[in-house]
């Protein structure tokens, strides 16, 4: 098996084992209903995590994701409820704002030569602050379009529902997979994550790629915000607090190397599903309190980081040989 596929395989096997164990304890988990809800409940996280995957693949980090989601929900809500715009117009404006925001952060990271986490930290403050300045209170969205979207779904055998937002997440993952593995931009991202200096010497347009990566991440966070506003039918400046951490955890659990350069967008999907499984399991169990989610996700994160260490340090000496062959 290809060496770089190992972390992905490990994640997939662990997810399969964990799901099997959960089903063994609660047979009710094995239904398309639960699977459909997995997709719907984690749609915003999954979409944001795709963007995060690209950022981490390039060796950076984006802490502004949760704040951009919160800002987008408020912006969409104000545009629809106060501005009287059609939701689709509001969505387009929100995506444009998010993209510009990401481009500005990418430019700051590249041209000011500042670590990405501090720039995106400033971005996080700005987006959260901007959202609360727009409206400190939660704004409910009442619009025929929202009702229609939340009532549209594809019914699976067994009663499971693939909702619009679940479908959007799957499409975003498909888009991310193609973008990462089949386009010039994707190759540039991997090259940048491997080594920025080598990438620049190879002719990778570092400035453009960096700006595009953060634009992509923020745009997807904006899309996640739209999905979140569809999911909750509201805009609130404090929604999706800490989602950036969940997204980072999903990416890491999905087998993407934090130092950049290795990883798969598909792994992130499994990472998101694994987090969803932990939450659903805790709900099914009923006796476990909600804080166990955080502890288990922290433990999973730790386990996968260690796993990466072990897998990559154990095979590092052989790397040259496999590449020559």
């Amino acid at each position: 098996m290809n060496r770089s596929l190992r972390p992905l395989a490990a994640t997939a096997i662990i997810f399969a084992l964990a799901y099997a164990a959960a089903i063994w304890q609660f047979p009710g988990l094995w239904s398309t209903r639960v699977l459909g809800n997995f997709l719907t409940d984690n749609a915003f996280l999954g979409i944001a995590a795709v963007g995060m995957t690209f950022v981490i693949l390039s060796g950076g980090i984006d802490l502004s994701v949760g704040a951009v989601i919160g800002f987008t929900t408020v912006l969409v809500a104000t545009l629809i409820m106060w501005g009287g715009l059609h939701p689709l117009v509001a969505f387009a404006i929100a995506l444009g704002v998010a993209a510009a925001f990401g481009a500005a952060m990418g430019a700051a990271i590249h041209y000011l030569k500042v670590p990405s986490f501090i720039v995106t930290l400033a971005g996080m403050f700005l987006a959260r602050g901007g959202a609360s300045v727009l409206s400190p209170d939660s704004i409910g969205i009442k619009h025929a379009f929202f009702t229609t979207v939340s009532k549209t779904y594809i019914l699976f055998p067994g009663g499971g529902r693939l909702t619009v937002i679940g479908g959007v997440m799957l499409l975003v993952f498909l888009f991310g997979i193609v973008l990462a593995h089949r386009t010039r931009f994707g190759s540039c991202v991997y090259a940048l994550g491997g080594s920025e200096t080598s990438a620049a010497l190879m002719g990778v347009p570092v400035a453009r790629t960096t700006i595009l990566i953060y634009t992509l991440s923020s745009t997807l966070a904006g899309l996640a915000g739209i999905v979140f506003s569809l999911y909750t039918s509201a805009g609130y400046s404090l929604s999706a607090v800490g989602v950036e951490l969940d997204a980072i955890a999903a990416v890491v659990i999905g087998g993407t190397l934090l130092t950049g350069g290795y990883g798969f967008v598909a792994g992130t999907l499994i990472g998101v599903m694994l987090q969803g499984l932990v939450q659903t399991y805790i709900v099914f169990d009923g006796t476990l309190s909600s804080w166990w989610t955080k502890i288990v996700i922290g433990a999973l994160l730790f386990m996968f980081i260690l796993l990466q260490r072990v897998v990559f340090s154990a095979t590092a000496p052989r790397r040259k040989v496999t590449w020559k062959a």
Partner: protein
Amino acid sequence: MNTRPPVFPSPATPPPIARPAGWASVLLRPQFMALLAVLAVNWVLFPGFFNITWQDGRLFGSLIDVLNRGAPVAILAIGMTAVIATKGVDLSVGAVMAIAGAAAAVMVTSGVPAWLAVSVALAAGLVCGLWNGVLVTFFDIQPIIATLVLMVAGRGLAQLITEGSIVTFSDPFLIFIGTGSVLGLPTPIVLATLLMVIAALIVRRTALGLLIEAVGVNRSAARFAGISARTLLLLVYSFAGFCAALSGLIVAGDIRGADANNAGLWLELDAILAVVIGGTSLLGGRFSIPMSVLGAVIIQAMNTGILISGFSPEFNLVVKSGVIILILVLQSPYAARLVQRKSAAPTSKGRQP
């Protein structure tokens, strides 16, 4: 014919600024200017800002309040400075604050003597820091990610300790840590000042500060130079954990309860911001503990200013992000190049015949 382009070797980071020459040059630093500007704005908005009164055996006034409210972040910033000086970062301090507060609160409510509860809470902070240090040194994980584990799981652990509720207490010693006063000054100010003086003396009067800077500039080089980088990193992360625990005790004592969900929430970001404002390089190798404390005071002065000016507290975040962006631009290589060109131009003219 030689086709290789000429190579001009230049240091990756600008050489550290020379040690301050005297009090005048220290007071002329941009941080002091910024603090004075913020205080002046506060004074314009609220003419009684500098009034300090003596009441019930302690000092009262807006200025004292700024220092008092700024103390938890200042204490975090002291630990964070050491970590950032080694080219690391500690995202878990907020969660460690929650753990320490929860541990102390649960222990005193179950009848354990206060001194023991406080010691255990501080020890818990040390252990949390040690855990981060072990991940960074022995497993060689990047600091952001290593401390992210505890940031995610730590709040869960704190909730596990308090069993999800806010544990309130009436233990006089814990309340004294949060709201008491020593010689007229609120305890948090005294604790933060003591910690700052001790830490600054230890790093500047011994070789420790130099060793930390060496590890921050280049860990392998420091190791080859005979510095035990691992022990040093373990020490630095444990110290950050200890500072976080102390800060957690103050916050818990202040509200007379341990709130596992909200104690220290996002304070790690404020602490990092304070360190950055203080001029410590995020790339490691140059740090100043008193300047980080000053950074924390500047942040708190801004917070207080926004509160007394009648703006909604939400503007805080926007202002903070504006400040970060300004500092990043000022610290960027472009700005440095501009300054260098200005200062280099006359000397090069003078030297050339």
